[in-house]
């Protein structure tokens, strides 16, 4: 990981070495024998944005949720295969511990309605009962809000409720909330689907900045978004990972005809 080799011949090796998250033959079912995703394998690259695309119902959200084990909230789920984070099997770690390493942002902005903006940012600490000094709290709040570009807009209203912000600001607040715990990976489930184009553009810019420090996995059914900001793209269809590769390459020369059909707007 600390490799300094930069020549092109070794690019492949670097890639293998900088795989942060390895998904291996993963299948997830919400009950019964029907699998929502079937034998998905992929290595997610560190400090890159990976977009997961596909028509609705293709399993992209399921895949995303399997990464921080949120799919287990449904009672009858079961899975086969494995996911490793930095070499460690996530299904052998306590989900609570895992979710602090892998943050998540949802479709609709969902700040905690009873908390102020300030408390929302440090919600992970408050809710987990971790005591911080006042100065530590201030530092985390300022750092996280600066990271998402919300500091200047909110520094005077930090103790107002988060639900007073606009939709785009709320979503950035939710990203800040996910960043406060310094996760390794951030999962975003169609984070801009409820936002207007201007707010969407801001979030997209933000994500590009954030990849310096975090690994980002983004579910989107907006192809333009994937093309604009992602480094790698996955195309899923009917629970199957059809194609996975560098975004530029996939958008110009897709290998699979289903990917091509999707990119040409033929379905979904």
């Amino acid at each position, binding site marked *: 990981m600390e490799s300094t080799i930069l020549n092109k011949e070794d690019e492949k090796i670097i890639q293998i070495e900088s795989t942060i998250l390895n998904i291996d033959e993963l299948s997830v079912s919400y009950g019964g024998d029907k699998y929502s995703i079937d034998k998905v394998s992929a290595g997610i690259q560190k400090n890159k944005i990976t977009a997961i695309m596909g028509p609705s119902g293709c399993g992209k959200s399921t895949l995303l949720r399997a990464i921080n084990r949120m799919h287990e*909230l449904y009672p009858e789920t079961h899975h086969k295969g494995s996911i490793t984070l930095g070499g460690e099997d996530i299904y052998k770690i306590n989900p609570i511990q895992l979710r602090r390493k892998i943050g998540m942002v949802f479709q609709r902005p969902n700040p905690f309605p009873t908390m102020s903006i300030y408390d929302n940012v440090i919600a*992970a600490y408050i809710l987990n009962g971790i005591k911080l000094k006042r100065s530590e709290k201030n530092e985390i709040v300022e750092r996280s809000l600066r990271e998402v570009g919300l500091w200047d807009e909110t520094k005077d209203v930090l103790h107002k409720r988060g*639900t007073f912000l606009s939709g785009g600001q709320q979503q950035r607040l939710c990203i800040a909330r996910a960043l406060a715990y310094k996760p390794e990976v951030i999962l975003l489930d169609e984070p801009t689907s409820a936002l207007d184009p201007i707010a969407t553009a801001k979030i997209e810019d933000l994500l590009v900045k954030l990849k310096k420090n975090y690994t980002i996995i983004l579910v989107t059914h907006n192809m333009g978004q994937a093309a604009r900001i992602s480094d790698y793209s996955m195309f899923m269809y009917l629970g199957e990972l059809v194609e996975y590769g560098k975004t530029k390459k996939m958008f110009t020369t897709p290998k699979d005809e289903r990917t091509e059909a999707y990119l040409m707007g033929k379905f979904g």
Partner: protein
Amino acid sequence: MNISNSISQQKLKWRIFNDRLFSIVMMSLAFISALPLLSILYQLIKKGYKQIRLNFFIEVAPDTMEAMMAKVNHEIIPGGIANGIVGTLIIVGMASLIAIPLGLICGIYLSETSKGKMAGLVRFVVDMLQGVPSIVLGVIAYIWIVKPVTSGFSALAGSVALSIMMLPSIIRSTEETLKMIPSTLKEAALSLGVPYHRTIFKVLLPTGMSGIATGIILGISRIAGETAPLMLTALGSSAINLDITQPSSAIPLLVWEFYNDPNLIDLIWGASLILLLIIFLLNLGAKAIAKKWKVQY
């Protein structure tokens, strides 16, 4: 052509007339239903306000002899309803102490368990309990507490009867309030690595607080005026009694006692007025909380 037109014209008039008549009758009936309320309030205030002095709150109810003497001498009947107020506070307070924690936890259980045999059965039972007449709960508390536990009528037995009575509404309002909260909030907390029980107590309960508190207060206001179960359990007491294993008075019990004693009957109005005021204030409080604590999500 012309004829049929004029017939349909006439018919149309008839239809419009019917429509008007119906809405007038309906509106009148609806507002007539509120007349008893005004009549009751008028009666209580007119006859009761004179009795409400400071003494009425700090003195216990007079015995029948005292009241008779006062009446003979054309004086105001002395004494008040302090024993009833203290008794109501103790009995209702203890009933809440029993019912609120159990009701909250059970409401959480039902809202978190949408499927499953056990939860279905519990829902069925809660529905059933909601319809049990209060007098039957009085019989139950008599058999469960009065006979074996306190070997005699007691405030505790009254509290048990009333707590069973308020449980279903607390359980149901908690369940319904929590179910309305979008699941994304719960997911947000869990995705931060917050354990399940903390997610419930620190995120879901505060978010649903206004609905839950409203349900609890309405439950309290429902039991505050109950008389029948207390007749079989707390019985009544002429003195202020703080020992929960002993008989205790309550405001509705006093109303009943005054009603049955020709010498004391003048006191029913003040006592009823206070009881009604307490209940109305609780209702108002519930409404205010529902409005003020409402969380936008």
